[in-house]
């Protein structure tokens, strides 16, 4: 069973056949012309800001004397980084995000997988309707989603809280223990459909003959789902996990919006919120250093996960 996945990827590779056309002057120019629209914005809006952030992170502010003085920046080596590593708030925001990710990512991807598998069964009718409905939250901008949910969480105005009170429940969605999971719920609501669609697309590309063969061997729908479909789409599951790890570390909109109505979210709740708070205090250099550290942690975690899983899955 396990060697099915590699074969599937090999099929994709062999259809390319671009190798034959390598080299040649006019062709290279054509390729360059097609690639420029990608590389120009990539350099301008990706490499340059990354470089700028790196540069800023090595600077420190100095000041000439007087009550207000005049400030200037100068090279400070790793001074900003030392401050980041000594900042308790930074580490507690990382810890919070870690807890968030360890719970939210598996829950979201498991739900997405179940939904994708359900969509893929012949049992389910009106597929396109369900596919669109499940995907719909992704079309809602994150901030809007957070605002919408913040109304549903708010004890003073929420129909949801009122309804739960009606059946004798008194939830406190914004309480100190619950607010992290309320934010997690918003993320899950936003992204499950998106992840489902990636997994569903992978499921769609599995040749039907495999299922026929499995059925002939007497496999139930359940067995087909867990022993054929899931292993084959493992690369997509890994991909969505990596996206989710990156997304988790970038978490900003949901807690920042919920912060407006809950005093249980501090201005340094997530690493990105901390970076923003520091930057808004005119400490751009420290904010840059925080951002670089977040980026490195994201890189290590996502690539680490990819290496780990791809080795295990034999991909």
């Amino acid at each position, binding site marked *: 069973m396990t060697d099915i996945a590699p074969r599937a990827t090999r099929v994709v590779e062999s259809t390319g056949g671009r190798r034959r056309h390598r080299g040649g002057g006019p062709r290279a120019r054509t390729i360059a012309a097609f690639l420029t629209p990608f590389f120009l914005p990539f350099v301008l809006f990706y*490499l*340059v800001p*990354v*470089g*700028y952030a*790196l*540069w800023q992170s*090595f*600077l*420190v*502010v*100095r*000041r*000439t*004397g*007087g*009550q*207000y*003085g*005049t*400030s*200037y*920046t*100068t*090279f400070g080596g790793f001074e900003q980084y030392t*401050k980041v590593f000594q900042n308790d708030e930074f580490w507690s925001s990382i810890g919070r995000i870690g807890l968030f990710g360890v719970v939210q990512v598996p829950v979201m991807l498991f739900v997405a997988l179940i939904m994708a598998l359900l969509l893929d069964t012949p049992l389910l009718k009106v597929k396109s309707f369900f596919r669109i409905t499940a995907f719909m939250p992704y079309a809602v901008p994150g901030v809007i989603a957070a605002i919408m949910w913040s*109304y549903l969480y*708010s*004890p*003073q*105005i929420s129909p949801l809280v009122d309804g739960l009170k009606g059946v004798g429940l008194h939830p406190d969605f*914004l309480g*100190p223990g619950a607010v992290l999971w309320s934010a997690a719920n918003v993320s899950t609501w936003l992204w499950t459909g998106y992840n489902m669609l990636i997994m569903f697309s992978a499921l769609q590309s599995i040749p039907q003959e495999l299922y026929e063969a499995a059925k002939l061997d007497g496999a139930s729908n359940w067995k087909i789902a867990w022993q054929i479909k899931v292993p084959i789409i493992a690369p997509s599951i890994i991909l969505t996990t990596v996206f989710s790890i990156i997304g988790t570390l970038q978490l900003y909109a949901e807690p920042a919006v919920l*912060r*407006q*109505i809950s*005093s*249980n979210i*501090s*201005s*340094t709740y997530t690493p990105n919120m901390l970076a923003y*708070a*520091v*930057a*808004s*205090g*005119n*400490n*751009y250099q*420290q904010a840059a250093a925080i951002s670089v550290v977040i980026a490195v942690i994201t890189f290590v975690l996502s690539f680490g996960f990819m290496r780990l899983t791809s080795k295990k899955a034999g991909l």
Partner: protein
Amino acid sequence: MSNTVTRIRLAAVAAAAGVVVLAGCSSPAPSSDASAASCEPAKGKVTLQYWNTVPGMDKVVALWNKKNPDIQVQMKNISNDQYGTIGNALKAGKAPELAQVGYDELPFLRTQNAFVDASACSAATAAKSAFVPWTWSQASFGGTGVFAFPQDTGPMALYVRSDIFKKHGLDIPKTWDDYAADAQKLHKADPGLSITFFDPNNAEAFNGLLWQNSAQMYQYSGDKWHVSVASDQSKQVADYWQKLIDAKLVRTDLAHGSTQMYTAYQKDQIASYVGAAWGYSMFRDNLPDQAGKWSIVPMPTWGSNPASGDWGGSTVAFMKGNKHLYESVKFNSWLNTDPEALALENKLGGLYPAATAGSKLPALSQGVPYYNNEKIFDVFADSSKNIDTDFSWGPTQKTVNLSLQDAMAKATAGKGTLDDALSAAQATALKSMKDQAIPATAGK
């Protein structure tokens, strides 16, 4: 494919390396602050950029533009992220000629060399007598420079739901002790009713309460800032509110200005509001059903002497790079002293003018229909006279406020006290000044 990826990685590393090398070469280049600006009128037509956050200000600017074809003003509303927008513009060297800056953020922006000194214009120095003294003193940092013109202030007062007070037989509180007693009575009569709310996410409101008690949080002497955020005066205020919070006499679950807050007032769950002058239009516009139920009285005091605090209010600052100082001073004076402009700003934006003549405006000496035709601006005018003029803000106020808010939130969640919040803010004040290379020390 993999070749391309490698090349990109190499490029990124090269770029990063280049950047680091560049950084190594960057030498200190202090730009001179408030260089002798000239005040020559421009030859032709001038267009000024003016950024602000006041509702309805577009109409005020339109009025100016109609009257002054040669000095046109382009307005941009930056309510969304006021200081972020200004900070980024400064960093990019693209600040507008004029921008709205709150009193509490003036020193913060001053340390970023954000302003130009307009004292080269005689009209600018002459404007001093037109403004309430403490506002001028904060906008000029107590010196002879003119970095901003005061626009509005937030003298504080107590907003009272007269009908609820009457129903429960409460007296209008004269002191904070009276107020606590009223809170207790109210809570006894109806546990669903609170005297007010304490928003842990609003350092500005809390700072106003500290200001009322003459808490001198920052002083500059002997080449150093002296930070005493956690002074005895501050602690008195913190302990008072902590007691109300502990006894559950005030709500702590409402963010100021949120739908939730208005809903609580709408549902008659809260009997008063400790607020500033600009709040008058807030209740008028958001709770039209409660017209006639509200009264505005002086803020309760700590002793027998009248004392008040200021919450909010702002200035219109002359920003770095201003090339049309003469015209900017002209527009700024009109905007903040002209009776017609002030009346319009009060009506549309709820601003309480910082100009001394402001309280004598016909619009501000009449009764306000929403408040039972009471002359509410008389209360604010009195309050304005009782504001401690020595109070000054710190140069990293924004960061201090965030830290204060985070710690106040912990206190309302039962993990600490407002006293701890003051200590946290004190530590943050010192640390943030150190980060900005501003010499600071604890205490007086």
